[in-house]
C-alpha cells in the first residue's frame, strides 16, 4: 500500500489483482454481468488511484473499495433508471422473471444463473444489502456503515429481500 501511495504502478496493479474479485462480487451482484459492470469495476480502481492519499486506513482497504463500488453501482442504476424513463417500453402480461417448469430440476439448471437472475429482480435498495451481507459476508453493522443506513433499516431490508428471494428460488431451497 505504501509503495502504491508513492506512485509505484506495479504495486498498485498488485492491489487491483488482490481486490478485483471482491469488487466483481459487489459490482456484478448489483449491475449484472456485462460491459457496464466491467467499466464500473475499472472506475472503482481509477477513482481510488486518483484519491489514494485520501485513504487514511480507518477502514480495511477491501471495505473502502467496496464502499466506492457500491456507490458507483447505485449511481449507475439511477442513471439507467433515468435512461429508461425516456426509452421505456411497457411490458404486458407475465412478470419479467418466472421459473419455468423445466427449470425446476436443479441439475438441468444453472444454479448460479438462477441466483443471479433472482438477485436482479430485487430493487436496488434491497439488492445492495443482500450483496453486502449475504454475498460478501459483511456483518449487518458493517453493511449499515458502508451504506450509511441505520442498523434497523438494514435488518428490515434484509428480511424483506430474503422473503422475495425465498419465493424466487423456492425450487432450489425446498
Amino acid at each position: 500500500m505504501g509503495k502504491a501511495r508513492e506512485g509505484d504502478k506495479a504495486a498498485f496493479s498488485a492491489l487491483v489483482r488482490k481486490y478485483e474479485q471482491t469488487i466483481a462480487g459487489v459490482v456484478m451482484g448489483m449491475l449484472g454481468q456485462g460491459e457496464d459492470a466491467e467499466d464500473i469495476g475499472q472506475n472503482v480502481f481509477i477513482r481510488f488511484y486518483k484519491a489514494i492519499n485520501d485513504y487514511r486506513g480507518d477502514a480495511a482497504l477491501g471495505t473502502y473499495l467496496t464502499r466506492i463500488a457500491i456507490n458507483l453501482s447505485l449511481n449507475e442504476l439511477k442513471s439507467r433508471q433515468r435512461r429508461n424513463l425516456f426509452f421505456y417500453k411497457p411490458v404486458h402480461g407475465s412478470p419479467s422473471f418466472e421459473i419455468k417448469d423445466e427449470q425446476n430440476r436443479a441439475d438441468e439448471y444453472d444454479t448460479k444463473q438462477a441466483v443471479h437472475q433472482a438477485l436482479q429482480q430485487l430493487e436496488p435498495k434491497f439488492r445492495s444489502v443482500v450483496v453486502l451481507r449475504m454475498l460478501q459476508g459483511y456483518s449487518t453493522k458493517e453493511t449499515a456503515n458502508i451504506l450509511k443506513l441505520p442498523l434497523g433499516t438494514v435488518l428490515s431490508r434484509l428480511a424483506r429481500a430474503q422473503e422475495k428471494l425465498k419465493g424466487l428460488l423456492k425450487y432450489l431451497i425446498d
Partner: protein
Amino acid sequence: MLHLLQRSFDEELEPAELIELEKALNDFPELVEEKKRLLALRKLMIDQEYAFSDYFAENVMNRIEINDQFEAEKSFMFAFTRVALPGLAAAIILLLFSILNNGVFSLESLMGVESLQTEYFSEILLFNY
C-alpha cells in the same frame, strides 16, 4: 417466531430470545424446515461467484496510463495558457504603445530601431560567416 429466526441469522439475540427460539425449534417442526430453507438460501448466496474478464487489472492500468497522459497534457496546456495569454497581451500592449508613441506601425518602431533595411541583414550575415 419467524421474525426471531430471521433475526438470528443477522444479529446476536438476547439470551432470553435465544431460549425462546430454541424452544420454538423443538416444538414446531415447520420452524425447523424454515430454518433449513433459510440456511439453504444463505448457502446459495455465499456460493455465488463473480469475476471480471481476464486482463481486468491490465485494462485498469492502461486506463490509468491514459488518464495520467491526459492529465499531463492538460496541465501543460494550463501552464501554456497561463504564460501564452499574458505574453500575447503584453505584446499587444507593447505594439499599441509603440504605435501611439511613434505614430507608425512597423517592425522598426516596434523594436525601437530607427531604420532597418534588408542590406543590413545581408552585411551582418556576410561578416559573421
